[in-house]
């Protein structure tokens, strides 16, 4: 950690550095920062706290896989004008597609749990009990989504989550050992332990999260992007994946520099220490505000996204602009996820480990849903000439197999009682 109480010209120098970082990183970084949810932030912070820089190489591999997967999803959306929920229902046997919908529901309900855990942890950092914060957030999120001005609420939450722009700055100002960082980025430094493996699956689950794949395809359809506009969209998809993972890597570096090697992350307060080099004693408050914004944002978007995909797959009404009576299944599913998320987050226990465990759950489900996406993107009957070419197919298959192997290893270790 670098000193933050240094006198003299320190603040001006700090401001210069902040501006320099922002100029280089640009608006993309800010957008990606806003896209990080509670589960992601707490999992990356956990990785930094427990294994310092050793997960960095894994993050590079995960980024490659994320690029491949996000590109396939964007392409499927652009060329078919359909979301993944609809495509899976149309292209796979009914039982398989209902299975996929169920898995998506479980994964997203898990994510919603971690968002409520994030809300609880953030409010506790700001001095409010989670037993008050979580129920209030539940009612607020539900009411705003169904009756209120969702877009305005989304902007407020996004603005709050911009607090995490402080991460890259903190990572640089903490003066980490850049030689170690560079070495861990380019060469594998895996730790032979079950805990490392479980955390690797959590990192995969939170980075290549199923919700993002479904969201990416639907967003392309919503934007009205077709095959003609797709080349530009492909650049966006790849850039988005890279920038978002650069932010994640900065979270790991900042946390590793502050509390690296101190064991599993115990509390949000501990995670907030990572921001101290940038903002000093305001770190817990800033972290709390950022975590609250990120959690609120995702706590509405994640259940909406899964309700949308599942309703699309089943063929029932689905739109936020519909009334509850017109789209009872859509809103019922949305409400169910919110209630389950809030209820689990209220159960006694450590909120940080709950959030990370939910990312492990996502990491176990990810490879199964990736197989569906891979098969769809390989099919010429779905994408015509835009189907995966042999080389891309090989790389994508390797990515899915790698993610699947790690998930399988965790399942086996858990079954043997070693994880």
């Amino acid at each position: 950690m670098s000193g933050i109480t240094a006198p003299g010209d320190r603040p001006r120098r700090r401001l210069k550095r902040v501006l320099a970082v922002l100029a280089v990183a640009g608006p993309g970084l800010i957008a990606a920062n806003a896209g990080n949810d509670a589960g992601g932030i707490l999992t990356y912070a956990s990785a930094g706290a427990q294994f310092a820089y050793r997960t960095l190489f894994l993050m590079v591999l995960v980024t490659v896989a994320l690029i491949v997967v996000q590109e396939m999803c964007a392409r499927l959306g652009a060329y078919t004008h359909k979301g993944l929920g609809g495509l899976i229902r149309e292209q796979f046997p009914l039982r398989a597609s209902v299975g996929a919908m169920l898995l998506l529901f479980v994964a997203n309900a898990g994510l919603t749990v971690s968002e409520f855990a994030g809300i609880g942890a953030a409010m506790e950092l700001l001095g409010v009990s989670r037993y008050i914060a979580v129920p209030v957030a539940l009612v607020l999120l539900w009411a705003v989504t169904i009756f209120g001005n969702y877009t305005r609420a989304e902007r407020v939450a996004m603005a709050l989550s911009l607090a995490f722009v402080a991460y890259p700055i903190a990572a640089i100002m903490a003066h980490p050992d850049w030689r170690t960082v560079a070495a861990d980025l380019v060469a594998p430094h895996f730790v032979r332990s079950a805990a490392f493996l479980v955390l690797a699956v959590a990192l995969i689950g939170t980075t290549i999260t199923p919700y993002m794949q479904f969201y990416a395809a639907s967003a392309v359809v919503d934007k009205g992007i077709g095959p003609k506009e797709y080349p530009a969209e492909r650049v966006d998809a790849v850039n988005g994946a890279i920038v978002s993972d650069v932010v994640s890597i900065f979270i790991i570096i900042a946390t590793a520099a502050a509390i690296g090697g101190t064991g599993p992350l115990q509390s949000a307060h501990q995670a907030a220490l990572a921001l101290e080099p940038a903002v000093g004693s305001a770190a817990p408050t800033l972290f709390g505000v950022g975590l609250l914004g990120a959690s609120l944002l995702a706590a509405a978007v994640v259940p909406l996204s899964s309700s949308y995909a599942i309703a699309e797959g089943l063929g029932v009404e689905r739109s936020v602009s519909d009334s509850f009576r017109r789209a009872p299944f859509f809103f019922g599913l949305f409400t169910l996820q919110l209630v389950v998320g809030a209820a689990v987050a209220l159960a006694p226990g450590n909120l940080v480990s709950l959030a990370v465990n939910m990312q492990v759950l996502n990491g176990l489900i990810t490879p199964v849903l990736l197989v569906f996406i891979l098969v769809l993107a390989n099919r010429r009957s779905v994408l015509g000439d835009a189907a995966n070419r042999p080389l891309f197919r090989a790389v994508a298959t390797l990515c899915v197999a790698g993610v699947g192997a790690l998930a399988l290893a965790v399942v086996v270790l858990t079954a043997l009682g070693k994880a």
Partner: protein
Amino acid sequence: MTSFALRAPPDRLRRRPLRRLGRRRLPQAEGLLSVAGLIGAPVRDRSGRHVGHVVDLLIRPDDGERYPAVTGAVVHTLHGRTVVALEAIAELLPDRLLLRETLEREPVHERADLVALAHDVLDRQIVDVDGGDVRRVSDLVLARRPDGLRLVGVDVSIRTMLRRLGPRSLPRKLVPDRIYDWSSIAAFSARGEAEGSSVLHLTQAVAELKNRGPADVQTLLDDLPPHERTRLEGATTAP
């Protein structure tokens, strides 16, 4: 994957103004067959020997009839997929297909005039012009008529879909109020490379849209793919 698509899969099926088949129009007669129930059913030849299972049923939608006739089946055998013409089928029962003779292999190839019911229609989305309903095809209903086996209805009930998840032995009950008359299906709109072929169907849809109230039109537009939405919006706002 080797596709047995006989034509580009339709993006969506678009219905003309609602005409649901009531109980009177679609009695629960013995002559009705469920396509979803037939898919996967065993195929036997004249000697009773098991030769494969049903993969799909074929119709020719533009045959000038209100209800198109089934023209054949796609059967999966040990040696791959083959098309069985209607003449070679002795009987199509709710749970099996019986052949007149032994199976003669006919290669599956693309035919623009045929539609494969399981591949092209089952589980696809229907956009309702008048109600703005969005449904998926849970099943297709065939009726035995003197002039052959014809496609008469589209079952869109969730209950039918859930029943398909259960074991095959579960009885398949038709629920009349969730079955749409096949003749009310206005158009297939193909996607991708075959998109050009959807223009004619869209023109029909536009003509219908003009008679609709603005609220209904908006609901329908919300459900269309953006590229079609733009075209339809232009058409409906034109004087």
